[in-house]
């Protein structure tokens, strides 16, 4: 099976979708001729023409707003916001319009759009190239929120998202674009070609939305993670010797609660890890759900390891990013509690 980077897998997902369905259109800033600042749409304009893949003005609300109109017409737009940090001008369109169009019109109009946005830190991106705004989407009724962690999932989830009849926020951890990253910034990064999850089948396949994947089975503690934090958790388990069960949530909403609950009931302990800031982050929802559903099985408080409640700094990158040392500490503390 061919190995691809996450960038190539995402591009392949759009290529496959555009090839199968001429209603799929792709646009965003620098997405057309140039092929995207991260190369995710390279070659699509040449292959499908400017009507199917084109450059947009620098106007996030315009990109999402026009995509909603296109979806109401009957197309399936898959649009890009260059960085998740720049989605805020489109937040009105995403939360008040895309999320609610089906509901408020009782199905008279629907909004099958995908909004791709590179997310996450660990790249010295500073305050506006590192944010993880997923909690701002999971709080919105009517949206679906997806975060892949590897090329295989990225392709399958993106095709599923494009085919989904509802609006999907597709957050791509840019730190994982070229290879997995476990937080050890002092070590060379392994490319996806060396990783089995870099195996991406040709052609059409989907990874269903709303289904988590168990990345490492274990019996001591359940780790709930997504995106880059999946590899950080794997490193932390390895380094502490704790037999952690690591769940890659893949879709945050709708959430695969069954997989989470079955695992925590088995291990009796749970650590939630994300890059986003702690307070009111998605970890709070996960923690509450685990408490509600697994209370009599819990042998320790649910722990959360997250970004600090500050804007994402530049120089202090590795003090901010929740690396394997911090996650490892939380694992040990949870085991001792």
């Amino acid at each position, binding site marked *: 099976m061919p190995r691809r980077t996450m960038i190539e897998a995402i591009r392949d997902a759009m290529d496959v979708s555009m090839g199968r369905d001429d209603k799929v259109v792709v646009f965003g800033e620098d997405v057309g001729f140039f092929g995207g600042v991260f190369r995710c749409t390279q070659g699509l304009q040449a292959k499908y023409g400017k009507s199917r893949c084109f450059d947009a*003005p620098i106007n996030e609300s*315009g990109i999402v707003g026009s995509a909603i*109109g*296109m979806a109401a*017409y009957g197309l399936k737009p898959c649009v890009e916001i260059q960085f998740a940090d720049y989605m805020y001008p489109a937040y*009105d369109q995403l939360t008040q319009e895309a999320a609610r169009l089906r509901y408020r019109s*009782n199905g*008279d109009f629907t909004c099958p759009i995908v909004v791709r946005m590179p997310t996450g830190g660990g790249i010295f991106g500073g305050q506006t190239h590192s944010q993880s705004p997923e909690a701002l989407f999971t709080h919105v009724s009517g949206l679906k929120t997806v975060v892949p962690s590897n090329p295989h999932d990225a392709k399958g989830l993106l095709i599923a998202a494009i085919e989904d009849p509802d609006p999907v926020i597709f957050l791509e951890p840019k730190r994982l674009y070229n290879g997995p990253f476990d937080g050890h910034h002092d070590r060379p990064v392994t490319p996806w070609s060396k990783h089995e999850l870099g195996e991406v089948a040709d052609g059409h396949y989907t990874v269903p939305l709303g289904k988590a994947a168990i990345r490492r089975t274990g019996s001591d503690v359940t780790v709930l993670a997504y995106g880059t934090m999946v590899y950080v958790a794997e490193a932390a388990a390895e380094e502490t010797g704790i037999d952690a069960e690591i769940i890659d949530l893949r879709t945050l909403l709708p959430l695969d609660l069954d997989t989470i609950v079955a695992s925590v009931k088995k291990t009796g302990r749970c650590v939630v890890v994300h890059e986003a800031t702690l307070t009111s982050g998605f970890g709070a929802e996960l923690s509450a759900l685990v408490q509600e559903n697994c209370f009599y099985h819990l042998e320790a408080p649910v722990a959360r390891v997250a970004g600090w409640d500050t804007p994402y700094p530049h120089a202090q990158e590795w003090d901010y990013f929740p690396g394997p040392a911090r996650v490892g500490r939380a694992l040990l503390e949870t085991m001792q509690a």
Partner: protein
Amino acid sequence: MADAGMLRFHVPEPEVRPGGAPDFSNVTIAGAGSVPRPEISVDPRTIRDMAFSIIRVLNRNGEAVGPWAGLLSSDELLEGLRHMMTLRTFDARMQMAQRQGKTSFYMQHLGEEAVSCAFRKALAPGDMNFPTYRQAGLLIADGYPMVTMMNQIYSNEADPLKGRQLPIMYSSKEHGFFSISGNLATQYIQAVGWAMASAISNDSKIAAAWIGDGSTAESDFHSALVFASTYKAPVVLNVVNNQWAISTFQGIARGGSGTFAARGLGFGIPSLRVDGNDYLAVHAVAKWAAERARGNLGPTLVEYVTYRAGAHSSSDDPSAYRPKTESDAWPLGDPIVRLKNHLIGLGVWSDERHAQAEAEILDTVIAAQKEAESHGTLHAGGKPSTRDMFEGLYAEMPPHLRRQRQQAGV
């Protein structure tokens, strides 16, 4: 030389406040028939002046004059008059129903009936409007059932939107009426996207975007103009300038711009200004803009100069911020009276027939209201089920919503 002393902060003020005498002497109005009618293929640069004038057809004597006249038969005009009268009667009954506690909220179109009623007749089947909350004439003129509109207003058991939406936030794909949102201006860019999709699909349908004077200040107005200009989208960009955004006079949104139509010029979009209380002029200009869009000539911006004669909404009291008699002083008059006089002048209408039509329309609206109320009103009778609250958010209900629905006992 400019005063180099202290800076002074500028806040525009309307000419008159409550207690003062209405004054529209600052409103420059071109004579009926005085503005030329260019070919739709005109070079936009050569018609920039049209963004500062006002296209008018009906003169003071009720005669249709000039190059924009003559597009509608007297039967079509009689139908248009009936649509406007129906909308006004509908408004009055629903406003009263709100006062009677049968619904929570209503917004009238008083004085603006010509804009949406006449515009609708310039579109073709399959075209899509992206309206605000003050274009119900698009539905009336397209034959959307009044009973269904009332069911929505009453949030009753027959409400097509299952009680989820605030009154008057209608939706009808079948009638080319996009789902109304409470968030202002959002639909303006969506209309452009819909038009882009039609062009991408090599279709022949066009979109119409709608916005009020106040909401042109929203960012999505700018987004829409940029996208429409960039992609030459087949869209008519309508600005209904009724002089007021709740309590805020249009100068606050317009600032130093001469007119709202002039906003389009900076985007290279041909921009016209039209007498919004002149049914014939609204229809003629709408048709011109629609033909441009359909001819792949790109977007047109149209400013309808009108006056919001009623309160902003059933929750608003305009006497707190403008003179009570201001609407009487509005120089463009009343759209129904003007079309009525024109039709009388043509010899196809009379005061007697008008009075008779008023009575018939009132009977029709009351009959529709009775039928709607048989399905319930907001606080009495049939209502949408609690289950409807959970349905329809996603194509397929996700597990967490299923759990919540069960918790709610439905």
